[in-house]
């Protein structure tokens, strides 16, 4: 079964970063929403519904945003899948459009973190991992140590992911960080969870991103006639309970998310021109690209160090700067990835443009669950 694509009529963001407390979740979301609506040339009266992804926004955050934007009264739903919340909202909007329920919808990913999260994120207190002392950085650090032992990869190769992504975001006006960093800076940064240091970790950020998604009838309603980038499909899988003593970096959850993406979109992995990858930590970009089958098993860190995943390389990963450098307001990230793919597929990404980009993938992974290989994973496939 294949569902009809969703057309991306507009995309907009507020720059990710650390904002004062009075720059509220509602204010950021409204800013991104207005930017996306303006980009689509859409009036408030043309929007059928609102899909909002967030994690820490509290009850009915989406409705609070709707009342700020002027979309009050419309159907609004809130979507929480931890760091895949924004992408999950995109998926639900895509399904609603394909089902014929709506023709023009607004999807917002938003998060206000800097006034409520410090020292790193951790699982829900009800999860056994929380009692054991798990923090997200620790899980990725254990992944990195095992990866180095199993594949002969070096600390420097893993650190190269951060250097690459910071170099990319120099060209991204919506990125939290826009300065290049050196390998020496990554290696010399304060240790967070060994072997990972501060610059191996995405920051705690505020921000919002939004897209206007349409059916063909919705495009006509907005008066759009030319081709616009399309969301061909959005895969969603969850972590599975693990048994046995297998490869810690098997990334079966990423493999399954990739297979969902190819099945739903009709696109094959060989057709992907660029990837926005959930690099919450340097090593995460490496093992997830391998899990998807887009980089040979055990070669991802070497690929980063050799420039194969940089702009101009054989498969550019995170031209936006990724989570490491664009920033990671968790519920906003999936929507920001779709904004980036939209700009890349339009050919309007400026200094970070991937030449000739026709087909692209965005991957988010949200949360952890004790005993499994992850919480939620989304895979968005887009084409121009």
């Amino acid at each position, binding site marked *: 079964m294949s569902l009809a694509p969703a057309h991306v009529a507009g995309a907009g963001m507020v720059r990710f970063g650390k904002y004062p407390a009075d720059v509220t979740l509602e204010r950021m979301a409204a800013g991104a929403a207005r930017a996306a609506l303006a980009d689509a040339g859409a009036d408030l009266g043309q929007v059928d519904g609102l899909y909002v992804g967030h994690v820490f926004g509290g009850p009915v955050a989406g409705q609070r945003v709707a009342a700020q934007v002027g979309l009050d009264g419309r159907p609004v739903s809130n979507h929480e899948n931890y760091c895949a919340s924004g992408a999950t909202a995109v998926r639900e909007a895509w399904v609603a459009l394909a089902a014929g329920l709506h023709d023009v919808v607004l999807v917002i990913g938003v998060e206000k973190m800097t006034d409520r999260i*410090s020292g790193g994120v951790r699982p829900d207190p009800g999860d056994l991992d929380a009692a054991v002392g798990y*923090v997200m950085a620790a899980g990725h650090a254990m992944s990195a140590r*095992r990866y180095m032992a199993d594949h002969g990869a070096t600390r420097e190769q893993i650190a190269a992911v951060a250097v690459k992504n910071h170099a990319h975001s120099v060209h991204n006006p919506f990125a939290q960080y826009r300065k290049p960093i050196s390998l020496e800076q990554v290696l010399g940064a*304060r240790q*967070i969870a060994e072997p990972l240091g501060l610059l191996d970790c995405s920051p705690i950020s505020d921000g919002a991103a939004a897209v206007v998604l349409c059916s063909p009838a919705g495009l006509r309603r907005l008066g759009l006639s030319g081709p616009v980038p399309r969301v061909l499909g959005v895969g969603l899988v969850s972590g599975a309970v693990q048994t*046995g003593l297998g490869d810690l970096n098997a990334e079966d959850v990423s493999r399954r998310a990739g297979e969902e993406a190819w099945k739903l979109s009709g696109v094959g992995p060989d057709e992907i021109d660029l990837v926005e990858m959930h690099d919450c930590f340097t090593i995460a970009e490496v093992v997830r690209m391998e899990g998807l089958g887009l980089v040979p098993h055990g070669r991802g860190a070497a690929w980063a160090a050799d420039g194969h995943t940089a702009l101009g390389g054989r498969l550019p990963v995170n031209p936006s700067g990724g989570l490491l450098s664009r920033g990671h307001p968790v519920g906003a990230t999936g929507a920001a990835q779709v904004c980036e793919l939209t700009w890349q597929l339009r050919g309007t990404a400026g200094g970070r443009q991937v030449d000739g980009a026709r087909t692209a993938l965005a991957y988010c992974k949200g949360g952890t669950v004790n005993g499994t290989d992850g919480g939620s994973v989304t895979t968005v496939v887009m084409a121009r």
Partner: protein
Amino acid sequence: MPPTNTSDASAPVRTRPFREGLVSLEPPRLLGSRCGACATATFPPREFCPACRAVEGLEKTELDRRGRIHSFTVVRQAPPGVAVPYVLAWVDLPADQVRLMSTVVGAEPEAVELGLPVELELTPFATGEDGAELLGFRFRVIDGEENA
């Protein structure tokens, strides 16, 4: 909601498992489940077998207390209220083919390495509303000079 203790209503409850069925106190063991159909063991115990999806024939089982470090990290930054540094590890229990996450004590962080043998001990995870210690688990590095 603390589990009901029926042993002696007048005596104060000193210790009990952090969660019912997670550990046994005497002797100190992790409690898992084992599938009667395919023999796969899991920790913590589950009501289904993650390997073959059986929902019947699962039995509680005490897991081997000896393990080895499959991977580890030294956590040097954590949310407020969590003392750092500490060693967090993936611990493999080869006898049961179970891998679990646990803190590891008994060695300087610099001395921890892949493959190091460790053994289970119980440790408070929290304090109950009645003041009881709620016992969870951690692993201790086995001193190579002793037969622990």
